[in-house]
């Protein structure tokens, strides 16, 4: 508990510093805010356009898909807000800046990600909440305390899965140094998790559930949530997987940290 409070205090200081430095570039902040919001809005708009012509995709109607999309956006938020620095790992390894993390008496992953806190994505957070409320209303979900709790657990699980995949992907930089194309590739894949995975062919379904488990970020939890009535054991698959993957991601990270030798300057 003591260490937790200690970490929290450090994080608050560092985050405040980062926000201050960001405030120096206000126009940049607003453009990024709108750009990111707009890119997510597009997912919503393209669904709206497609549903002008048809009424169902793979057995899912418009509002169910909006709910799915909202859930996906929400599950990605923790990574986008708190772990944005993962994008810069490859750069920090190339310049040697990463060596800083070894000199601090705190966890390397914690120290590295606490360098930035990205508030640019709050527009997307707003959109996610809006979509969940709007679509949830249209779908007449009868919320109970238990359901609400399970929804939160699933969200936490999905967020952990997404975060873990990101951590592992950026950790590859410890071995291959330049991994921007891999990170971009993941971005592209992430766009597809907003559709029901069941519409894809078997090999792609396998790919999205076993190799890069993006099916579990939105499709699996939302499907169990919307389409099974009572709470059963299957509701806890996502949270359990999330915890397992996160442990694995931390392991990969620490292996990488041990492996890195600096730039020698």
């Amino acid at each position, binding site marked *: 508990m003591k260490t937790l409070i200690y970490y929290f205090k450090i994080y608050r200081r560092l985050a405040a510093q980062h926000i201050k430095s960001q405030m120096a*570039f206000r*126009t*940049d*902040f*607003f*453009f*990024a*805010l*709108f*750009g*990111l919001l*707009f*890119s997510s809005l*597009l997912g919503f*708009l*393209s669904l709206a*356009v*497609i549903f*002008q*012509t*048809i*009424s*169902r*995709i*793979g057995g899912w109607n418009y509002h169910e898909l909006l709910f799915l999309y909202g859930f996906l956006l929400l599950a990605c938020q923790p990574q986008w807000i708190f772990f944005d620095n993962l994008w810069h790992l490859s750069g920090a390894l190339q310049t040697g800046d990463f060596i800083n993390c070894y000199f601090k008496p705190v966890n390397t992953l914690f120290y590295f990600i606490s360098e930035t806190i990205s508030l*640019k994505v709050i527009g997307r957070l707003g959109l996610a909440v809006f979509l969940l409320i709007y679509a949830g209303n249209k779908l007449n979900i009868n919320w109970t305390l238990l359901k609400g709790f399970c929804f939160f657990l699933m969200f936490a699980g999905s967020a952990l899965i997404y975060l873990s995949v990101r951590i592992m992907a950026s950790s590859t930089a410890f071995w*291959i140094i*330049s991994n*921007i*194309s*891999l990170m*971009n*590739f993941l971005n*592209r*894949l992430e766009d*597809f998790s907003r*559709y*029901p995975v069941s*519409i*894809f*062919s078997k090999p*792609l379904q396998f*790919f999205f559930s076993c190799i890069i488990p993006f099916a579990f970020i939105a499709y699996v939890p939302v499907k169990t949530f919307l389409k099974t009535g009572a709470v059963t054991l299957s509701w806890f698959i996502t949270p359990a997987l999330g915890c397992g993957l996160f442990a694995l991601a931390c392991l990969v990270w620490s292996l990488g940290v041990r492996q890195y030798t600096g730039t020698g300057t």
Partner: protein
Amino acid sequence: MKKYFAITRNTLIDAIVFRADFFFRTLGNLIYIFVVFYLWKAIYADSPGELNGLTFLQAFTYLAVSGSIFILVETWVDWGLSLSITRGHIVMNLYLPLDLHLMIQFNAFGTFLFRLVSTGLPSILFIVLVFNAPVAIGINLIFFIVSLFFSFLMSVNIDFAVGVSAFSFESILGLKFMKDCIILFLSGAIVPIPFFPKPIQAILLALPFQGMYHTPVNILLGRLSVEDSLLMLCIQMGWIAFFIIIGRLFYRKILKKLTISGG
């Protein structure tokens, strides 16, 4: 002209060095093609015939080829240019007895060529051969290549204008993001233009962006007669000229304001 082609050659060689990049780009595009295929198959599941005048295979080809074109024409010129303005590297280019605007175009052309051969054409061949895409074979293939090149020119000149104007906005990543999204959506690369409601369609066709994806893809599909194709190519050229003028105007203005400290 010879010196400019030397720049093209340089970027070509540069591009070949980064093979991991190429690998993930091609793999990503391949998966994109498959995902688009199954997604639109599900969309067409209840209506085996045509939706909005497009058959399933036509809609699929439309989007899959658009996705491949996006890879060809994404230049990052705006990004590089604004970085070199804000960091001051641009002086190095201003010293040279070359025109910066032309230099950037030839530079991006090298990347375009590399991607055309390494990712673009193979992807399109893949779409045609594996999915049996309804591509018309004839004079339109020549028009398609020309239109592809125009699409690239349009992209690079839009990027140039955006990159230069980023100087006064102090922002580039957000601007680039917004620009990419707007172009992809308004050009029909995410949802085919025929799927939009009629009044919006009219607006989209009047905007320049349809020239980047909608025109080349329609030519490839053989949905345009020879006269129409030529007309669309002329419209593309008109918009390219428009963006060149805008870009150069911005550029001249920026050069006057530009001060770079120290060195």
